[in-house]
């Protein structure tokens, strides 16, 4: 119940943040600019529009999650609005989770808006509403949930600039870690290989949520992959949030 109150309040706060609308504007702009880009290609025009559209939603969604998320907890601490909250009969984790769900709700609304613009543009080109795109967008959303958790983790102990940097690193590592697999194969068997494999499995693999290419080409994705990816997202988010709560719990608010 307390979580819900904080979440709704956070949603109200985030929705008033101008950064959100700036990013939304750019996302819409890039989706519409793809129309022009499509004119330069030879062959399938719709593919360019779909690729740019999905990439924009993914990229600007991540920016929203990071820029707003890293300010969420920090602002409360800086502005000392947190004092009146923590002194209430609220457990510290309820505060963090409230902030988290508030931002997730905000992202859901933003993503929905971007999706509508995107699907409308695709409709103008292919004269069909391509509902399959929503599958890719759904998994982009799952990725954003995880990024939000990471942003909140860093926000609870670091300044917005550093937190943004760390969150960005998380995002880059997440999209890079799949390539370590080939590297590990080249290491001769031994303790180094085992350690490398442990590191590989613990590093976030955000490519698991990347179904953009499959959806654009109309390939079928095995339900098993979908299920496992969603579960991976859920579990990793739980992991990050637990970490955040752990750090936040013993924190002195000077």
């Amino acid at each position, binding site marked *: *119940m*307390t979580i819900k*109150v*904080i979440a709704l*309040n956070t949603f*109200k*706060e985030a929705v*008033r943040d101008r950064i959100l609308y700036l990013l939304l504007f750019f996302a819409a702009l890039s989706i519409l600019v793809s129309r022009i880009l499509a004119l330069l290609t030879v062959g399938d025009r719709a593919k360019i529009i779909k690729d740019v559209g999905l990439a924009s939603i993914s990229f600007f969604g991540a920016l929203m999650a990071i820029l707003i998320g890293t300010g969420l907890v920090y602002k409360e601490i800086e*502005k*000392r*609005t947190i*004092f*009146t*909250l*923590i*002194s*209430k*009969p*609220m*457990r510290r984790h309820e505060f963090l989770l409230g902030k988290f769900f508030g931002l997730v709700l905000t992202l859901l609304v933003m993503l929905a808006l971007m999706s509508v613009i995107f699907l409308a543009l695709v409709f103008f080109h292919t004269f069909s509403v391509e509902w399959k795109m929503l599958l890719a967008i759904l998994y982009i959303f799952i990725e954003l949930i995880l990024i939000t958790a990471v942003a909140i983790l860093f926000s609870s102990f670091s300044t917005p600039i550093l937190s943004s940097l760390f969150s960005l690193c998380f995002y880059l590592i997440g999209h890079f870690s799949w390539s370590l697999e080939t590297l590990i194969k080249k290491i001769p068997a031994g303790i180094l290989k085992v350690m490398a494999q442990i590191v590989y499995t613990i590093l976030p693999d955000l490519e698991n949520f990347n179904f953009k290419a499959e959806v654009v080409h109309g390939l079928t994705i095995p339900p098993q992959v979908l299920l496992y990816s969603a579960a991976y997202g859920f579990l990793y988010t739980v992991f990050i949030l637990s970490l955040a709560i752990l750090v936040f719990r*013993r924190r*002195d*608010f*000077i």
Partner: protein
Amino acid sequence: MKTVLAIENVHKFFKVGFIPKKKEILKGVSFSVAESEIFGYLGPNGAGKTTTLKCILGLIFPDRGKIEIFGQPHLEPRAKERLGFLPENPYFYDYLTAREFLDFYAQLFRVKKDERKERVASLLNLVGMDRARDLQLRKFSRGMLQRIGLAQALVNEPSLVLLDEPLGGLDPLGRKEIRDIIIRLKAEGKTVFLCSHILQDIEMICDRVAIIVDGKILSQGPLTDLISEKILFTEITLSGLAAKDLAGLGESLSAHGGRTLIKVFHEEKIQEILDLVKNRNAKIHSLIPRTQTLEDLFVEMVKSQ
């Protein structure tokens, strides 16, 4: 008398500086607050007042010592249910209106919806913010913020109210109003814990005080016990006597407009002056005996460290 708040031997270290050096802020703080009293917590800046308060509220975790609220460990949510807190220089969500703001906090205390409306309205009335109820907090003046902060501290009808510098930045009328509210709270059976360094106000309303200097409690107890009733000196304002006539009787503080203000330390000298006035047909404008004030005590304590 039931003890509402009990602090025992609380220590707190902070790590300060780039190469962390341990600095002890609270060096074994102990005191207790009884039910239905107004308790003043005084000290110079940096003494540890706000740190103590934050320890009580669970914003900071003490390294050693025990804190109990209503007989329960201070971190228990149940203990916090009956607590109200107004921080120093409060900042609140400035995009909310006064009404939304109080409603938000009422929700955190799980006050039911219909009850909430009533309570918010009565609180706004209590702190005199009725007119501003739909105004966004970002447009509030310092005094208005202080009042709405007080309202927020009372939103759950707490039994113990903790106020950090509640009178700071208010004009004399505002200070009077807040003082009146605090006295009213006591009349309703609530306990008030007050941090301040505006000693005149403390003197006016507090029952008991504790003085903290440099992380240590130097003295605590009922105000009347701490401040002796002894007369320190008497200030007499008179006219019609020359300075040389008053030589040796006391300290002449100022002399202009025909009036002389003299500070007399010895009782016998007062009688001498009165005789002198009568004999010379001079005039006494005022005679004020000054007892020790809290300020005097305070300065004494701080200087002795």
